[in-house]
């Protein structure tokens, strides 16, 4: 009754061969990079990798650091802690990276942070916003605003737009929750009344029930957290059901794909981000042009943040002449940087205090709307807290 199993020793031989493949290592300045190339976060991973590669290519074009070329050692962590731990350990031990950059989400970055801190390898985080990351230790740096800070920025924007009744639509992951926490913290101080909050999961694309409930709430403004692949459908379904209240999003929306998916419904959507398309700052303009030339697609927030994090690490290496460890940590901490996402300076918790760029979608592209720079409201947490 057992089916005849054909002779298949080929399968066992193939499995054995896999185990011995190893990557050759040359004497170069190795910069580690963990990024989700597969799994649910692969879309952001792709942009993040492009941004980091661009920064390394530009640096190598200008002669690298102290005569050595910089090599980006890329690991796919599928945005999960289970993959991030072995990747980070391997980067530290086998590849002996001199510094590392995170182009991944919070879950994997938090797990990797502990390992880089213990190995005293400076770790510059692009867009993962969980507070625990910089709390892991003094070798950790973050170039984008934390979730709570962006949330508070969103509340300030709602006040600037003169809106009173707001409905929160929160993506159920740490990014969404941090943004909601920030918004709820600032709203009462700014006279904004949160009439309702709804949650949705990462795989959700159809928001019919949510949209109907929001329509019945009839808010002045909607503060909805998400990424372009959730926000695109959400915004178009809100408009399709006749909800006209303005929608405030965040850096997760910040990609041309959002406009492509939501189509005409995306017109007039506000987002709090740190990449200003109409910026006249040379660094931003140059980055937008170089990125389009390198990938013939528009840059998004994730690419800009990853480019910035990589560039910050490289500038630190330039200052220490290629030396890592504590010297590199102090060099990065002390530096001030003019990057595509704004002028950056690290506070004692190695968080950055920078303004929030408000963009608005006007005839199918992101345009500058305003800048929010309230030093008190947008102050990142410091070590003391």
């Amino acid at each position: 009754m057992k089916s005849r199993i054909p002779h298949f020793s080929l399968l066992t031989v193939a499995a054995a061969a896999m185990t011995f493949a190893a990557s050759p290592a040359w004497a170069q300045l190795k910069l580690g990079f963990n990024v989700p190339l597969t799994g649910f976060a692969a879309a952001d991973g792709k942009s993040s990798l492009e941004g980091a590669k661009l920064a390394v290519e530009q640096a190598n074009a200008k002669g690298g650091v102290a005569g050595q070329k910089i090599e980006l050692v890329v690991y796919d962590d599928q945005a999960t802690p289970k993959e991030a731990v072995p990747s980070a350990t391997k980067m530290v031990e086998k590849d002996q990276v001199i510094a590392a950059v995170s182009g991944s989400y919070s879950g994997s970055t938090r797990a990797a942070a502990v390992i880089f801190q213990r190995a005293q390898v400076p770790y510059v985080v692009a867009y993962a916003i969980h507070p625990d990351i910089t709390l892991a230790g003094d070798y950790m740096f973050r170039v984008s605003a934390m979730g709570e800070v962006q949330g508070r920025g969103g509340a300030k924007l709602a006040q600037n737009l003169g809106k009173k009744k707001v409905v929160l639509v929160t993506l159920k992951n740490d990014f969404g929750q941090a943004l909601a926490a920030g918004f709820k913290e600032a709203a009462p101080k700014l006279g904004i009344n949160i009439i309702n909050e709804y949650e949705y999961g990462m795989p959700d694309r159809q928001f019919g029930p949510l949209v109907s409930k929001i329509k019945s709430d009839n808010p002045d403004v909607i503060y909805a957290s998400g990424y372009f692949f959730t926000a695109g459908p959400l915004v178009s379904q809100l408009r399709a059901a006749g909800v006209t209240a303005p929608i405030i999003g965040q850096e997760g929306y910040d990609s041309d794909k959002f406009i492509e998916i939501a189509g005409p419904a995306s017109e007039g959507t506000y987002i709090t981000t740190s990449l200003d398309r109409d910026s006249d700052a040379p660094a931003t303009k140059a980055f937008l042009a170089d990125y389009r030339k390198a990938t013939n697609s528009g840059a998004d927030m994730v690419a800009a943040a990853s480019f910035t994090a990589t560039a910050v690490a490289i500038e630190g290496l330039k200052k220490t002449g290629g030396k890592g460890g504590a010297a590199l940590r102090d060099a990065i901490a002390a530096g001030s940087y003019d990057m595509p996402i704004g002028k950056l300076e690290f506070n004692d918790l190695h968080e950055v205090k920078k303004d929030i760029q408000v963009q608005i979608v006007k005839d199918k592209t992101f345009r500058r709307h305003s800048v929010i720079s309230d030093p008190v409201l947008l102050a990142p947490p410091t070590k003391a807290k």
Partner: protein
Amino acid sequence: MPAADPEVQTMNYEISLLTTMAIAVMFALSLNLITGFCGQISLGHATFQGVGAYTAAMLGKAGLPFLATLPMAMVLAGLLGVVVGLASLRVRADFLAITTMGVGFLFVGIVRQQEFLGGELGISSIPDHGLGRVGFMALALVMCIGVAALSMYIKRSWMGRVFNGIAEDEDTMRVLGIDVPRYKLAAFAMGTALAGMSGAFYTYHLNFIGAESFGFVESITVLSMVVFGGIGSVPGVIIAAALLSVLPAWFQVIGDYKLLVYGGLLFLMMRFSPNGMAGLAQHVASTKWFPTGGRS
């Protein structure tokens, strides 16, 4: 933070890999008890690893030492296992897989909403187990060997023989006077308790857990390990779990095609050797080198 002396430091990668392997083997063997020995297909086994992981994390943060959280993790996971076992007894055989899958989604759906379990942010800054990296790995390996030995013992005992009968034909076993429901519950209880243990080790290995790490994908992965190794075959499951758990790390070199190869391997193994590696080894042994034929 004093830098660990360089010599030990370079071994951390292998140590963490070995620990990951030991935990994965423990977890796969625990499912092998339920699905391999007793024939009850579970598509939600990661739930019980999750119960063990969260129990250990909460108790650990409350001050209990790691070794004290271990038995508690096993007891709680085992209890939930019995409850799910009881529920699954009411359901038709071919619905069992889908019911256990439902339990898996319920677990993730409930845990990620509870604030005291850390909600979406999960639980972090779990105190260190205090055994040192090498000591923790050694303990994981010892427990893993213990579970393997227990599995081999059960397989040779009368319980193993009854499980094998239930897996093939429940009705015949009832006619032989076997209390089939109680045996199924015993398999569920033991399997889920051991899964809880692997969960406790998982927590202290990664010292950060979230509800997403015990979802449907993980339940499918561990079931694939058992089936890939050869359902019911203890050595087969051990090898498959060890290999597949660190495959992503080895496959870094293929990078982009990692999951494609993993899915392809699963399909090809099932298509050409349904009894997994154990079946393959048996087939190769019985024809090529031992023409007298081992067990056909």
